[in-house]
């Protein structure tokens, strides 16, 4: 770590004492054996001693100097840790990418060379393998973009057969919602992947004795219709989710936000990459959903399976 600033700050501090005529203190600071030792030296004061204002000012000035150095050192260390973290994250991302590429290669060999026995090698092409004007969004190719403006999206409504958020999930003796709240609809449009919105439905067996109001006693999947309003007409959204088992059931659009017309009704597991071997007509895993240009879009999603979350509820025992 570059600590030259400690020396220069010390010199400035010594010069200040010299200017004030306190040459002894200035010399003491300038010729100290350890240039990194704190300037402030604690001194015991007798209760009956008359306080010296000059001495008190000197102590405060020394403490101020030492704190400035501590502050700078902490800032430097913080920066170093930050870059170390970022570097580690980049390396881990690369490892993750390499593993994903290898997994895909093996899957390709199994699926494609299994189906078409005359082939024994598969190679995936990326944007780097092409020249020309192609554009891509994380491996998805499309026509060259001549103008791109990000459009603000607003979630205007969420309706479904369950509830919003991750309430009732109990993990490590605490409520998950207290650590990671997923009720906020704005999490869907805040541009951050570290936040998320969840729509849940809890099903249980009828034999359960303790129940709460949001519990269901069937096997119906969670379904929710998310209504989005864009500041300008849009013809594509990219839905990002870390869940593979999420089904897009229906897409509807509207010109006025009142009357919607359905433009897609086929159920697709749009985030499930394995689907590429069964269905050619989607870019599975990309999250891209297309529709006629509109300002109002309604996306109907449903779950496909359930999580391994522990479900619980709390009540107050008010017996006296």
């Amino acid at each position: 770590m570059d600590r030259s600033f400690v020396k220069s700050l010390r010199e400035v501090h010594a010069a200040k004492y010299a200017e004030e005529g306190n040459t002894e203190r200035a010399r003491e600071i300038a010729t100290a054996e350890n240039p990194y030792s704190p300037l402030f030296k604690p001194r015991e004061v007798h209760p009956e001693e008359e306080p010296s204002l000059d001495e008190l000012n000197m102590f405060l000035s020394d403490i101020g100097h030492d704190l400035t150095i501590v502050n700078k050192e902490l800032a430097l260390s913080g920066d170093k840790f930050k870059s170390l973290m970022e570097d580690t994250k980049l390396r881990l991302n690369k490892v993750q990418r390499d593993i994903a590429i290898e997994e895909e290669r093996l899957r390709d060999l199994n699926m494609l060379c299994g189906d078409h026995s005359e082939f024994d090698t598969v190679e995936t092409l990326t944007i780097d393998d092409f020249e020309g004007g192609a554009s891509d969004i994380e491996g998805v190719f499309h026509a060259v973009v001549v103008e791109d403006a990000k459009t603000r999206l607003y979630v205007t409504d969420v309706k479904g057969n369950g509830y919003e958020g991750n309430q009732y999930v109990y993990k490590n003796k605490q409520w998950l919602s207290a650590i990671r709240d997923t009720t906020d609809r704005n999490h869907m449009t805040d541009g951050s992947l570290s936040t998320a919105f969840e729509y849940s439905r809890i099903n249980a067996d009828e034999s359960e004795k303790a129940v709460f109001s949001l519990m269901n006693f069937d096997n119906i999947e969670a379904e929710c219709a998310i209504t989005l309003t864009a500041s300008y007409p849009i013809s594509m959204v990219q839905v990002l989710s870390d869940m593979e088992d999420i089904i897009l059931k229906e897409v509807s659009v509207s010109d006025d936000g009142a009357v919607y017309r359905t433009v897609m009704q086929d159920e697709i597991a749009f985030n499930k990459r394995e689907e590429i071997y069964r269905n050619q007509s989607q870019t599975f895993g990309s999250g891209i959903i297309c529709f006629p240009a509109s300002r109002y879009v309604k996306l109907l999603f449903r779950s496909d399976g359930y999580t391994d979350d522990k479900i619980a509820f709390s009540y107050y025992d008010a017996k006296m």
Partner: protein
Amino acid sequence: MALNFKDIAYTDTETKKPEAKVVEIKSARRHVVRISDIEAHRKQFQSETKMKSRELIRVPVDSIALFCSEQIPTHFANQKYVTYIMTVNGVDYEIEPINSQRAGKKIIKHSELDSDQPYAVYIKESIKSAYLTIVIQSHGVTETPYLSNIKILYGRGEENGNV
């Protein structure tokens, strides 16, 4: 006159505070739709985009095909939005991805025999050079088809036990 009262009685009974009790539901299953982010862009696209691959062949092969996922929205007019041209040994062949439902040539294959198959193009020499060109037509100015998982399948024929 003012009356001033004072409490001189008290009780030993401790007031119990209500306690929160957590009850786990063993058979409960949470079905969930989780969305991290939804992004939208207002883009304008070039009417025609042509992209050409690098040389695909390192070692001569006997068959070659393309695998590709296409997302062409259903509201697009009924016309061809994506064209795939495989240039094999200097000759252009218009092909369709092997996973496509559309009719067309899907495999280019080296064979000494004269054969006519609706899904294959037979050539009389091994494949020593191949380039893939993809032409994408946009739909109006603001919409485009999307392609992903562009994969090339190679077969080495008899050497590998396959014909």
